[in-house]
């Protein structure tokens, strides 16, 4: 056993009794299974195809204590200025892995909409939770590790036909660092229901820490879910996320991912178009500078006929930054009339930066229209000349062009308040 595994094992043994619902044998078995899965494989190395370009060596060396810890009290006013939706009527706030009722608020929810922190679930309700989290547990080694340690997060659900117009904000704040946090969010949208969920991960510290989260999305027939995840992590944060979505007939998922900071980010996203007529839109923007790394591994599984998918990821790389993109699209046998489009564009602005991209199509049906496109390039010279010849300074011209490249991902966010906040965020980094 490697020393890193030994460290996590010691932590698991120390924390296990205090984790939620541990009085239930099902939950003990569930967590143990998660641990066994993780321990069997250990930390993946570069020999592992899915981790070919992303080294976990530094994370492996980071031996931080796991589990929630008592957070220093924070005022909403300090968070307010950084929150993506400061005026959100429904927000759940977590600080250092623990739910903060005094910082959260839930306005009156329409009938059929339920939002609760995981740690406040009763043991009976938690049994149902296992079924929803089950799909994500085996997704990656870290999702399995999350299953062992997971202590908090959000469970949001919309019953058949229910609709929540305003977005629900899930804000996770890392304030202290030197800690590993495991969070899980479950969103369940039943037949014909509609929901908008925004996950924001905000780092207030540059101290080393490791955030390992999973998100599990379930869309019933005709359901619509708009989902957004924003990583605004501190300079010492390792963020690993796994997202698993399951879509039934004619459901529609729009998921936007923004990875704007943090020393290391890795997201494994998978959506299964399980029944005919389902559609998914995946958009993403990653920015790296300094010695940061952002890695997106996406997988869209067309398991049924007449489904569509549209995917677009863009990246801006500066300094010694590194980015990895792997977009897998798998069209199963007999998944006829599939329409699938994927693009990945990278703006490489420094000779020390590196991008490794691999779009991937695996197609087993013939009546399909699938395409992907990838580019790696620089700022357009003629556009650069146009701006400079009109007296615009080099810094501003550069910022404008980067903004123009990145903003169309932001522009596709359907919630106006979120879109405007993100525009500000993308801009502010350019003008620093």
């Amino acid at each position, binding site marked *: 056993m490697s020393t890193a595994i030994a460290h996590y094992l010691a932590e698991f043994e120390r924390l296990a009794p205090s984790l939620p619902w541990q009085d239930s044998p099902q939950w003990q078995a569930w967590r143990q299974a998660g641990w066994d899965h993780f321990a069997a494989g250990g930390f993946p190395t570069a020999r592992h195809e899915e981790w070919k370009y992303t080294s976990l060596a530094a994370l492996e060396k980071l031996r931080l204590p796991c589990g929630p810890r008592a957070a220093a009290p924070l005022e909403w006013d300090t968070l307010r200025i950084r929150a993506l939706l400061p005026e959100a009527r429904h927000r759940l706030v977590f600080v250092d892995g623990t739910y903060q009722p005094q910082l959260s608020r839930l306005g009156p929810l329409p009938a059929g909409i339920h939002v609760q922190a995981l740690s406040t679930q009763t043991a009976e309700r938690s049994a149902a939770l296992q079924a929803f989290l089950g799909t994500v547990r085996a997704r990656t080694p870290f999702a399995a590790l999350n299953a062992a340690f997971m202590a908090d997060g959000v469970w949001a659900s919309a019953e058949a036909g229910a609709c929540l117009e305003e977005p629900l904000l899930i804000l996770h704040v890392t304030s202290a660092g030197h800690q590993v946090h495991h969070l899980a969010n479950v969103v369940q949208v039943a037949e014909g229901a509609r929901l908008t969920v925004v996950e924001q991960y905000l780092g207030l510290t540059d101290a080393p820490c490791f955030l390992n989260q999973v998100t599990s999305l379930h869309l019933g027939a005709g359901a619509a879910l708009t989902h957004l995840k924003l990583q605004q992590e501190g300079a010492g944060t390792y963020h690993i996320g796994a997202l698993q979505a399951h879509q039934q007939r004619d459901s529609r998922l729009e998921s936007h991912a923004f990875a704007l900071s943090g020393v290391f980010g890795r997201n494994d996203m998978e959506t299964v178009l399980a029944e005919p007529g389902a559609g998914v839109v995946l958009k993403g923007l990653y920015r790296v500078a300094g010695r940061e790394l952002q890695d997106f591994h996406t997988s869209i599984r067309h398991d049924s006929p007449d489904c569509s998918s549209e995917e677009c990821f863009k990246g801006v790389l500066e300094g010694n930054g590194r980015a990895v993109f792997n977009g897998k699209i798998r069209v199963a046998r007999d998944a006829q009339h599939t329409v699938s489009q994927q693009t990945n564009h990278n703006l490489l602005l420094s000779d020390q930066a590196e991008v490794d991209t691999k779009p991937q199509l695996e*197609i087993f049906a013939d009546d399909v229209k699938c395409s992907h496109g990838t580019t790696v390039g620089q700022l357009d010279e003629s556009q650069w000349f146009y701006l400079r010849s009109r007296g615009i300074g080099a810094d501003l011209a550069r910022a404008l062009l980067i903004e123009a490249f990145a903003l169309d991902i932001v522009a596709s966010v359907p919630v106006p308040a979120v879109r405007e906040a993100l525009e500000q965020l993308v801009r502010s980094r350019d003008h620093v």
Partner: protein
Amino acid sequence: MSDTSSTLEDIISQEYQHGFETAVEADTLPRGLSEETVRMISAKKNEPEFLLEWRLAAYRRWLEMSPPQWASVHHPPIDYQDIIYYSAPKSQKDGPKSLEEVDPELLKTYEKLGIPLHERAILAGVAVDAVFDSVSVATTFKDKLAEHGIIFCSFSEAVQHHPELVRQYLGTVVPVQDNFYAALNSAVFSDGSFVYIPPGVRCPMELSTYFRINAKNTGQFERTLIIADQGAYVSYLEGCTAPMRDENQLHAAVVELVALENAQIKYSTVQNWYPGDKEGRGGIYNFVTKRGDCRGAHSKISWTQVETGSAITWKYPSVILRGDHAVGEFYSVALTNHRQQADTGTKMIHMGKNTRSTIISKGISAGYGQQAYRGLVRIARAASGARNYTQCDSLLLGDRCAAHTFPYIEVKNASAKVEHEASTSRIGEDQLFFCRQRGLSMEDAVSMIVNGFCKEVFKELPMEFAVEAQKLLGVSLEGSVG
């Protein structure tokens, strides 16, 4: 459409046309591979000491290696002790000095294959080095080429007459430890072609090799080495066939190209090894390592391939763009029908400044055919101003076939421009309707559309090959729609 589909059915189920076996007495080593086998092959070919040592080193490396598992192809494990590693037509021993001395049975074989080996060669203006099982049978036009100082001969001859060139370049592009099959080839290769174009010479004709696996249970391990010295130019063609058999046969070749400053090499392949029958019995396992090294500035290497045969194709013709301003090209049409599998693609390794590469890959899958494009474009940190354009399209005919795309793109230089596009679709109903409505038969319509799909690649092929390639494609495609 139903009236046409019966004739189309005939076409798709057409038997392999080159599946005859020639009764030629052969000098064959017993099955199995050991250090002794390697020594015997080397001794039979009267090789110098350095080559034997090189083979033995490769053999020892091979013993430590295991076959690659990452390709998306499936086959039962190969028993490397059940293969005959050396088989030579007997009469070859005395060494034919001219075409008249070549075993007439052999010449008939090549006639059946339609190779312009005889007088037809002159008309066609093609110099052929024909490799039958493991040894080179005859090389035409040698004298004419010698006038220009061009060396075009079998690999064994090159070893005897130009050992210094062989020693200088052999294994410098594909090192023995490169991969499992390359190591195996390095240990047991029996023959192949050798080309050297001296500085400033433009080879006056297309050079060509025809490979054929004839004897049963033999593996073919040929090795081709082409060197274009400074400012030289050569266009090289390669074609392959094999008789029909129920068993699978292994073909593990290595091709090395070296282009020095301002040199250009154009390498074209039409591969039509026996693909196995409809149920996937028999056929050639074509596990080939092909790589070109653009060593000098302004050099250019271009690969064009049409892959219609083989039960399994595992092949990635690559270019290392070492010299500044070097150019690499890869044009490919791959067809898989029935139970054929192909995992093919290319690697473009940009190391020099202002290097450029183009990849055009067209895959056609029919029946239960499985196909994967697997490519790598790597822009090294020092390769400023590098440019790559990749396009890989797949055409699917039938709902039981598959097409996959695995492009790896690694960029470490901020002045690089890399573009990749890929699409997968089937023949559009609207395209078919357009053609049918104008009176074209279903067959012609499909053929036209498919040829249009492959046109970008076919136009890179030399004339004679382009015609052959179109005919080959015609064999199985039309039946898949209707």
